[in-house]
């Protein structure tokens, strides 16, 4: 019987993604999947799930990438989504509607006893940056792959090059004041921003043929800058600032108004398209 409880260092992440912020992500999953649609396409283009393959989707959240990968592995294949949040997995299971080629498991991928040599592919869209011990987590995922199996995942490049997050934080800080900056490599959204660091971790974990490179993408929100700002204010740095500073509804409205101004330059005729830079990593189990 798998043990769903997280490693001690990951208990905070489990609470985060199960309670408040996780509940918001679950409620907003359609908007967030739309936001990340181009990144998802990039991931699938790189990972190339093939018919009949067995894949693991790490940090699958509400299951968007799991289902998209399963559409490619087909009836003869299987994709298992792994997440630390039952809140998000509940949404994922609902969306899967009982289809037999996907399953979802509540587990900490850092320590979960995956079936050894079981998977052709491990993939992840922004789900790899939260491990308290990333080297251990990557080694655990390597053991889950068949020899010759591949791992392909996306992480965020540095915040300075990602205006969705950078501008949201700037608007939040302008209203509520500064918070302690995240230390480099600290588990969180930008922990895997350094390509060299992650390539080194993959090598330590026993992977071969490691590549890491940047890719430009766009985060899309239908409508105007106000809609994009409202979505950005629900998650990420504004959400954190609101929690830590005890922000009020008035603060949120002010932040959204400020952020809408900052996002205005990204408006197109039909939507807001915020440029983003992600890191794409790929490696093989020898």
């Amino acid at each position, binding site marked *: 019987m798998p043990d769903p409880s997280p490693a001690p260092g990951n208990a905070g992440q489990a609470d985060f993604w199960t309670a408040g912020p996780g509940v918001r992500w679950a409620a907003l999953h359609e908007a967030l999947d739309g936001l990340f649609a181009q990144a998802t396409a990039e991931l699938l283009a790189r990972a190339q799930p093939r018919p009949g393959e067995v894949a693991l989707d790490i940090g699958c959240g509400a299951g968007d990438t799991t289902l998209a990968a399963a559409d490619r592995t087909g009836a003869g294949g299987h994709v298992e989504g792994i997440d630390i949040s039952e809140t998000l997995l509940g949404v994922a299971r609902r969306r899967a509607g009982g289809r037999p080629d996907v399953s979802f498991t509540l587990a900490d991928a850092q320590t979960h006893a995956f079936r050894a040599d079981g998977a052709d592919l491990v993939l992840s869209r922004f789900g790899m940056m939260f491990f308290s011990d990333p080297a251990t987590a990557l080694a655990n995922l390597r053991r889950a792959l068949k020899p010759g199996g591949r791992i392909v995942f996306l992480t965020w490049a540095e915040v300075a090059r990602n205006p969705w997050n950078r501008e949201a934080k700037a608007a939040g800080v302008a209203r509520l004041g500064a918070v302690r900056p995240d230390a480099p490599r600290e588990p969180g959204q930008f922990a895997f921003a350094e390509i*060299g660091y992650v*390539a080194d971790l993959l090598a330590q974990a026993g992977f071969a*043929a490691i590549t890491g490179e*940047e890719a430009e993408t766009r985060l899309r929100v239908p409508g105007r800058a106000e809609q994009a700002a409202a979505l950005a204010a629900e998650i990420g740095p504004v959400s954190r600032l609101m929690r830590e500073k005890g922000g009020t509804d008035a603060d949120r409205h002010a932040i959204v108004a400020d952020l809408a101004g900052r996002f205005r330059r990204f408006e197109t005729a039909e939507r807001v398209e915020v440029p983003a830079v992600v890191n794409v990593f790929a490696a093989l189990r020898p």
Partner: protein
Amino acid sequence: MTKSVIEEDLTIDGNVVSKDGDIEVKGKVNGDITSKSVDVSVAGQVQGVITAEAVTIRGKHSGQIACTELALEKNAEVTADVKAQTLSSEKGARLVGKVQITG
């Protein structure tokens, strides 16, 4: 083996080759470097292709790196396509570009 140092007040526009030697760059090189080892110090800047067995970057580099062992230290600022057998990257090192670790 010989060690050659490109001192802080020295700028070289052109390629630098030291077949079996070690090169330390404290100044600037606008060109390719081929050597047994290359060490770009904190004040050093290289713009070009570095080819060596061991490469340590503490300063700035843009271009390409092809080596066996690559070490990026905390002040490293690298914009390069990198191909190495091993890579270590200290916290704070910045690397923009494509990395291939052949193992």
